[in-house]
């Protein structure tokens, strides 16, 4: 018995189609490469007790010391806070905050005494803090013109539409335009040290170096810089000041390198806060050059606040009330604070990270133990079980 084969197909079952003319059609079979046949070499990790359990213990062991370090660092930071909003009748600032109106021409001053229990070493940072101020409101955040602030002459004369309704006043472009600039914080805070011998010494406050370097040198530029015979006054000619401002932008500071758009108080304000409760760097109290004395020794201090305008208010009111400046600003739920703080490598005082690291580390360790028990009790039994066919 002989058998013959009738070769219709190749070994792999793929039919090669041969035309009557003898031409062979191109096979559509994918190439036999690791990529096309989905056989690329690969690492196939799986969650085994051997990897998961040590990971949990190691994370626990790493996190707890980091957390302790962070917590200690945060605790070593000294911070002092004064609320000078003036909500209570007894508060020294009550009068100023109640009677002040946008049209008022005479500044109102209030004096708040306080006592520092610990001496503050090295540079001390002075912040103003606002609460319930929605600097992150969508329409507020975009109410600015970065081109104008970057010194662009066209934008200076024709502010962006984003600035509306704070783009023009009396047919003159507002510089700087927009709601952010309009609502700039302009309380003046002054600190005095009450010497044990009775004299009241004003503490020197530095207002240079409080803004980001990139903001000061790249993002914000005065218009007309570098042109001959230009001073700021002429550069800003034809523009008007924001409605709520007392002075035009070119009179923010006497020093030329801190005036106009590159005024650091202005720049700090223009970097809008992420959250409705925020603090912004106001001044730096430099440590004395001899280094022997603490920057702020233990003792009695006085904070003097010169009210120029009321700042803390809910933004929704802020936006709509300010549409007409004559409209009297009434109550606000906001708070104003003055904060004195030292800093560390991890920034300001914030115990959260330290506590969180300690907690997470402990939880990891605990979870590791729980998983170990589960693995010992059930894991072996289940994984060695045969797969039913």
């Amino acid at each position: 018995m002989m058998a013959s084969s009738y070769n219709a197909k190749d070994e792999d079952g793929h039919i090669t189609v041969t035309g009557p003319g003898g031409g062979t059609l191109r096979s559509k079979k994918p190439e036999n490469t690791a990529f096309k046949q989905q056989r690329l070499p690969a690492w196939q990790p799986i969650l085994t007790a051997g990897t998961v359990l040590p990971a949990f213990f190691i994370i626990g062991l790493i996190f707890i010391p980091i957390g302790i370090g962070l917590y200690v660092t945060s605790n070593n930071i000294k911070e002092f806070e004064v609320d000078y909003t003036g909500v209570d009748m007894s508060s020294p600032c009550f009068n100023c905050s109640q009677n002040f109106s946008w049209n008022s021409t005479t500044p109102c001053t209030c004096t708040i005494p306080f006592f520092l229990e610990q001496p503050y070493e090295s540079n001390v940072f002075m912040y103003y803090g606002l609460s319930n101020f929605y600097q992150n409101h969508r329409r507020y955040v975009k109410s600015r013109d970065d081109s104008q602030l970057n010194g662009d002459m066209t934008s200076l004369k024709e502010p962006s539409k984003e600035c509306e309704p704070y783009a023009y006043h009396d047919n003159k472009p507002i510089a700087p335009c927009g709601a952010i600039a309009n609502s700039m914080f302009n309380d003046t805070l002054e600190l005095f040290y009450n010497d044990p011998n009775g004299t009241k010494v004003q503490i020197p406050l530095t207002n240079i170096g409080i803004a980001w370097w990139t903001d000061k040198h790249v993002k914000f530029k005065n218009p007309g810089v570098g042109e001959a015979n230009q001073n700021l006054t002429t550069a800003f000619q034809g523009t008007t000041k924001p409605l709520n401002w007392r002075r035009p932008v070119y009179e923010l500071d006497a020093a030329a390198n801190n005036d106009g758009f590159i005024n650091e108080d202005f720049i700090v304000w223009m970097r809008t806060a992420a959250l409705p409760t925020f603090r912004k760097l106001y001044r730096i109290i430099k440590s004395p050059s001899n280094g022997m004395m603490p920057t702020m020794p233990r003792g009695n201090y006085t904070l003097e606040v010169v009210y120029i305008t009321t700042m803390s208010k809910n933004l929704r009111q802020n936006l709509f009330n300010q549409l007409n400046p004559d409209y009297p600003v009434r109550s606000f739920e906001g708070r104003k604070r003055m904060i004195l703080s030292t800093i560390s490598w991890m920034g300001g005082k914030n115990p959260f990270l330290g506590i969180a690291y300690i907690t997470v580390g402990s939880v990891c360790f605990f979870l590791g133990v729980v998983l170990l028990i589960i693995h010992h009790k059930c894991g072996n039994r289940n994984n060695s079980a045969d797969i039913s066919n």
Partner: protein
Amino acid sequence: MGLVASFFGQLCGKEKKPEEERHLRANDRSFNLTYRYANNAIKTSKYNILTFLPRNLFEQFQRLANAYFLFLMILQVIPQVSSLSWFTTAVPLMFVLSITAVKDANDDIKTEKVDFSWNQLADPKFVFHDHSLLETVKQGNPDAQAFFRLLALCHTVMPDEKKEGELYYQAQSPDEGALVTAARNFGFVFRSRTPESITVIEMGKQVIYELLAVLDFNNVRKRMSVIVRSPEGKLTLFCKGADTIIFERLHPSCKKLVEVTNKHLSEYAGEGLRTLALAYKDLDESFMDEWKQRHHEASTALVEREEKLDELYEEIEKDLLLLGATAVEDKLQDGVPQTIEQLAKADIKIWVLTGDKQETAENIGYSCNMLREEMKEIFIVAANTAEGVKEELENARRKMSSSSADKPSVIKARAGLFWLQKTETVQDEKVDGEYGLVINGHSLAFALEKDLQLELLRTACMCQTVICCRVTPLQKAQVVQLVKKYKQAVTLAIGDGANDVSMIKAAHIGVGISGQEGMQAVLSSDFSFAQFRYLQRLLLVHGRWSYLRMCKFLQYFFYKNFTFTFVHFWYAFFCGFSAQTVYDEWFITLYNLMYTALPVLGLSIFDQDVNDRWSFQYPQLYTPGQLNQYFSKKAFVRCMMKSCYSSLILFFIPWAAMHDTVRDDGKDIADYQSFALLAQTCLLIVMSIQLSLDTHYWTAVNQFFVWGSLAGYFAITFTMYSNGMFLIFTSAFPFIGTARNSLNQPNVWLTIFLTSLLCILPVVAFRFILIQLRPTINDKVRHKMRNEALPATTKHVHVRRISTRRSGYAFSHSQGYGDLVTSRKFLLKIPVRTRPALFTETDSPLAQNQPQHYRTITEEPEGSQSP
């Protein structure tokens, strides 16, 4: 949409008056062209250069997602409602549109080049050696020669000789081709035919037979005959047909031979071979003249022509002399029983819908292990009335489950988009033991009627194996639709012939087997391959991977976008509900488009939980997919909850860490821009780690995509926040310096680290606990894979079929081509490219229609041969 379409039609001046008559002159192209009738050129491409852009855009915006994005973009142009710049939607939309447009254009260009040369499926090479039989033929054994002469003459095969010595046969059924080819190899080469003659080269000598008549095959006759006159003037009728039919018409003198042949036929049939009996008869001239006269009258009769012809044929096809029998091995393709076994293990229900006769279908059922001797009972439904079918189905059902209720339990539910779709599901019923069901086409016609279809479905679903034989293409589709409708099951139809097309189209997934049967099945299918056994690779490997990847992709996609959105929800409480975004607008633009696009693409291209060999080893890995376990409503809710948790971490940890804090030089870090950068960096890192956890199969490409995306994020961020970008596009990139100023802070990185860990730890712990307590089949196999060597590739062992059933089958079930070969039509030189597909007959897709082995039965002196 119809209104719009007709409006466009009018706009383009396309509307025409309905055409009532056409004037044409035959073979006068230039005259015909003057009327400018629509031509009948086939255009497979959709666009041309001018219409591409508008048409493509129109089609793309018909997609809901694109239209939605367009709507969003229009909204964002309105400053009062927009919380984002226009580019956050416009850039991704443009990107998606242009990618799709390029793809469509590419597809269109490819379609234009489509090659129609598939229909040549010419004759393959032929190798043959069989000395003993060849010797018998060579020695001039008249019976043996007559046997092969018959095979060379009695058929409707068309020869095709393009070049000298290269002969191709085009046969109506592959069996017929095989028989003619067999004759050719025994020295009876069918060379060419005209309507009046057949040229055969007999043992090297050219002999031209005058073809007097072709008594064509049809379903009732089950036989075909030719009447030829040899050059010597001898008149002979050659007849081949189903054994039972031929045996009825034999001359009594053949009685002894019939017994022997019958024994052989039973043997062949038992092996699942398809058998035919061959017979001949010498005619005398005067009878033939008279018969021919009547034949001519009958074939030109205006009424009852068919009947008259049948009568005439009946008259002449009697007192035949038996020559022998042929058997074509209807060899199953490699690995069919194994594939079916594997699919059954994967809990896939297999129904066979075939045009074959019941016996053949049953044989194939046995040979591929679908019907088994150890089954409790195999029900055969073959009634000819609706009542009979109903009774048989009900009896079968009662036998399988005596407690089964009269009415089927139907669960009505709603599904689909917005639950608009009403669904009805017939519940499965419990059965002890294995049963089989065979139902034929007649009964199926009744069973598919409205009042019986649920009964059919119930009974059929209780059986392990369902075979429907003698079914029409329409019935095939109806059965598929029945299952689709009342089982809410995903259906796959696999077939190789033109009459499987409707079924392939009706099923969710259509698979065409490319082979002898022409390309119609392949062309209308979603997938096509050359052999049935590749179905297990398609389903158990690629289908499973594809499902896994799709589910992972969807879950991850939902996860990353829900998380992204939920963070904004939490932030809303801190920004006066003003819809301020947490992230930079550019980040929002690029988040889905760039930063998280490639890693998930890598996941959904390369991921595999276990490789192909393990997938074959454990077909039950396939079952979670059938239960929709990887992505269901439950999984979706779980995904949402995970997103919710992640978003809480992703917002409140940075919030608490940055709240009231400052940089290490006392300056601002709790500003909006720094916070946005911190939050978005946390989000992206968490998403990357989550993706890494989901990735089971880390190829180099995955590594590259994940790390590359993260690196790309930092590179792009630093670039966009650089001085240069700000000075060139001042208003577009206001985040200048943010990256430099906040990413050099240790507490920022400590926050990122903490956030990522808090997002990931519970996921890892949860997954680990699940693996420990309730490992899925995947976990078990993955665990096994780690500890054991790869399973070997399974060798396909040929299983010898042992059966006592008899099959008699080698013809097509449709009308033969007798008319065609005796007409002059086929003599026209028709270009190959437009030749209609001749092979419309299908057998069971399980059968490989290439005869593979030729065997001779040596003890058969008559030369009865089984090609």
